[in-house]
């Protein structure tokens, strides 16, 4: 993975830069010892590692602004970092860059039930927001599996999803406002406790921008009243095709479940061995369908889904009759990643999205690829919205196996695009999928995205080397190319 060439002058000035940062963030907020820097050398994509030049942990927006202003003036690169759980290397440090950690921004600032929202600092974990309001019967809907660890700022930067986003939307659909600091130190507020933007939806473009547009220092999200009931069905199928048909039939019947997750046989077996959730071991595919809402509604929809499942050749159907049982259904799915981690020394988690009706084609092709590469693969799948998480099993200690796993992964993602899907459904591009962007976008598409980057960060010092395969200078991107041979505006003199 080629990263931007380190700036030798910046590296040679390290001591001076540390001193300058210590003047802004006193005490232990500036980390410069190699031993301590180790903790920041990678994010959740552990195959890529790089020691940052320096780590700084500011505590106030004013400090963030000072740091950025200083770095802007000195030409120093910045990598924002939340909890470091990104699976695409978005928070991967740069050799000549400062990793700006938001870990000390860990307070919930305001719980406002009248306006049904919570304002939090970006380092607060996703789950902590729900925990803060759960006692009053509310929750924050997007629930990435990493929710005990990942930060709300990181969620905004990645536009994270979760098992409930089929019905309740991604981060972008639940976000009301942000405060952020631009690379030149300017503090801007976008949105607030009200809906929609009066002008351009700048908050919308910042959501999912992977730390390339600004450092988020405050987040306001909508909270919802918790549903009065939730029940789940655990359905075993003789083939992933019939499971896919069942998903289509449920949605075709006008039912949008709170969650709808699929696992294939290798994933079922790994999960069962890990948590003993009572999954049907003879099933080729397993579907967990959760219905939530008023009790009468849930009871009725459970019956309807049960019928649809049987019409679609379900081998086994279990319906949860208690919270314990429902949680048990989920236990295996939620532990799927670590469970796969137990049956293989390493695994590589992919994240493409496909149009759902192409599922069986994609799975068949994936089986062929698995044989071709000689690597096993287990699939967990946000079935309702077509977001596929193939887990490629490999052993990093076997020479060449990581490379093989990455190649295999790239093939899968290309396949997703080929069938009408996309490279990443929720984990982001980061460094991992950066060089695959050309599979989905033309040079024109990518340049238009980069011009947006230039509007926010014209010197391109924020998280460079991520998302875009080729770096262009903003001046070059801004140039207008006129096509000669005008015909339709003949009477207008040209300048």
């Amino acid at each position: 993975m080629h990263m931007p060439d380190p700036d030798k002058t910046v590296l040679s000035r390290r001591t001076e830069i540390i001193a300058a940062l210590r003047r802004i963030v006193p005490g232990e907020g500036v980390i410069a010892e190699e031993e301590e820097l180790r903790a920041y050398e990678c994010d959740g994509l552990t195959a890529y590692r790089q020691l940052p030049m320096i780590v700084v942990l500011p505590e106030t927006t004013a400090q963030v602004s000072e740091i950025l202003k200083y770095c802007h003036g000195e030409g120093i690169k910045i990598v924002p970092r939340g909890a470091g759980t990104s699976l695409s290397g978005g928070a991967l440090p740069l050799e000549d860059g400062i990793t700006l950690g938001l870990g000390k921004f860990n307070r919930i600032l305001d719980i406002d039930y009248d306006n049904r929202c919570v304002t939090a600092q970006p380092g607060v974990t996703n789950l902590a927001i729900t925990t803060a309001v759960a006692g009053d019967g509310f929750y924050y809907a997007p629930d990435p599996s990493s929710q005990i660890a990942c930060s709300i700022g990181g969620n905004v930067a990645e536009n994270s999803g979760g098992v409930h986003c089929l019905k309740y939307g991604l981060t972008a659909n639940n976000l009301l406002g942000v405060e952020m600091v631009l690379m030149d130190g300017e503090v801007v507020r976008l949105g607030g406790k009200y809906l929609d933007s009066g002008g351009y939806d700048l908050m919308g473009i910042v959501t999912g921008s992977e730390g390339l547009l600004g450092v988020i220092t405050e987040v306001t999200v909508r909270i919802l009243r918790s549903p009065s009931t939730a029940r789940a069905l655990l359905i075993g199928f003789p083939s992933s095709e019939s499971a896919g048909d069942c998903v289509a039939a449920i949605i075709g019947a006008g039912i949008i479940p709170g969650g709808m997750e699929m696992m294939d046989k290798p994933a079922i077996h790994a999960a069962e061995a890990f948590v003993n959730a009572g999954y049907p071991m003879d099933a080729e595919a397993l579907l967990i369908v959760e219905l939530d809402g008023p009790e009468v509604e849930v009871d009725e929809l459970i019956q309807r889904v049960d019928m649809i499942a049987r019409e679609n050749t379900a081998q086994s159907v279990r319906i949860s009759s208690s919270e314990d049982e429902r949680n048990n259904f989920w236990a295996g799915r939620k532990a799927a990643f670590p469970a796969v981690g137990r049956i293989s020394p390493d695994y590589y988690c992919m994240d493409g999205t496909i149009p759902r009706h192409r599922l069986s084609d994609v799975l068949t092709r994936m089986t062929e690829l698995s044989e071709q590469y000689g690597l096993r693969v287990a699939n967990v799948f946000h079935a309702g919205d077509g977001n596929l998480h193939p887990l490629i099993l490999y052993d990093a200690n076997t020479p060449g196996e990581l490379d093989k796993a990455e190649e295999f992964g790239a093939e899968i993602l290309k396949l997703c695009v080929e069938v009408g899907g996309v490279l990443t459904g929720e984990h982001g591009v980061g460094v991992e999928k950066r060089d695959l962007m050309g599979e989905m976008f033309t040079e024109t598409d990518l340049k238009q995205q980069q011009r947006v980057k230039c509007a926010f960060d014209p010197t391109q010092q924020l998280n460079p080397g991520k998302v875009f395969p080729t770096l262009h200078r903003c001046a070059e991107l801004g140039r207008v190319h006129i096509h000669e041979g005008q015909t339709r505006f003949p009477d207008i003199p040209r300048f």
Partner: protein
Amino acid sequence: MSEKFTPQTPKETCEIISDALAAETPIEIFGSGSRRLIGRPLETEYALSTSALKGVNLYEPDELVLRAGSGTPMSQLRMQLDQHGQMLAFEPPDYGPLVGTPADSGSLGGVIAGNLAGPRRIKAGAARDHFLGVDAVSGRGELFKSGGRVVKNVTGYDLCKLMAGSWGTLGVMTDITVKVLPAPEKTRTVLAACVDATTAVSAMTAALSSPHEVSAAAWVPQNIALRSAVSYVSGAGTALVALRVEGIGTSVDARCASLRDELSAFGDVDELHSHNSEAFWEEIRDVRFFADDGGGSSLWRISVPPADAPNLLDGLHKDIDLEAFLDWGGGLIWVRVAQMQDAGSYVIHRTMGGTSGHATLIRGNVYQRTREPVFHPEPVPVARLTRKIKEAFDPKGILNPGRMYEGV
């Protein structure tokens, strides 16, 4: 009258914009023209209508996705969705009649370009939240795409978010992909007498904080309720809070019963069933109560934190002659200002000074739309970003120049 181009294909759209760029000549971009009178007035010699870029070219009900040319009439889309029991869940409103254009003449592109949304906004999101992918021609004369046809997608920047609500100032959208959802089996509305805005917002807050999944919450004062075509509303003889409940039959019945119980603390309750419920929410969605401009009245759409609405309304009532009703549980205030030279702009912005939110002048005469901020003034650093975004898409300022802000 300007010369009008009606490109038949995205490629032709691209050629026209390239020509305009080469000539550095501004060009008005519109769809069907139903919202042409919203925004700051444009004086361009040329115009481009997307009306020929029409037709649904992909609709997969099981996948909840639809792609269509941006000029596709909303009426046609609705028909196709109806056949499959589906809908655009953000309840696209029709503001045509508010500004003197025929009802139901809007296009998909117009709805998206204005990021419009009806009463279900509070539960289902706005146009932006259902906008999955776009093909568009930038002011650089380049055809670009963003997004895709799947809901879960974080590949690259989501330029759809910028296109939604940019009123044709960033690009000419040629193809639009949206998420569609099943239409509810049943709809019902609980009405409760609530004389003043403060009580009304409390009642709506209670309902929206309940587990009853209220999908719309509005308050109409008595004089406005009188104009409703729904007799239960016009004949109620009081100001009303209305709460909509949708879903499967048994669930709707149960939730309505609970809501009636809980609301009786606020005032007398009643219920609207299917047809009446639909008719009433269309009136709210399309702001029909204010369709008549009553001889030069202007119309504002104000989005605020719901809890701030009563105070803001009080403040406005003190200084201007107006009528208002609330949607979005108080978060959206529709204000009709009786004839005033500045459309009430000064007082509205001054009174909003203390709160966050934004006011948009939906109906105003040419003078008002030229002199007053039609779109809410942005703080300096945000305005700077807005300009830079405009430059990123349209460096020569040829697409709907100045429609939102001067120089943008």
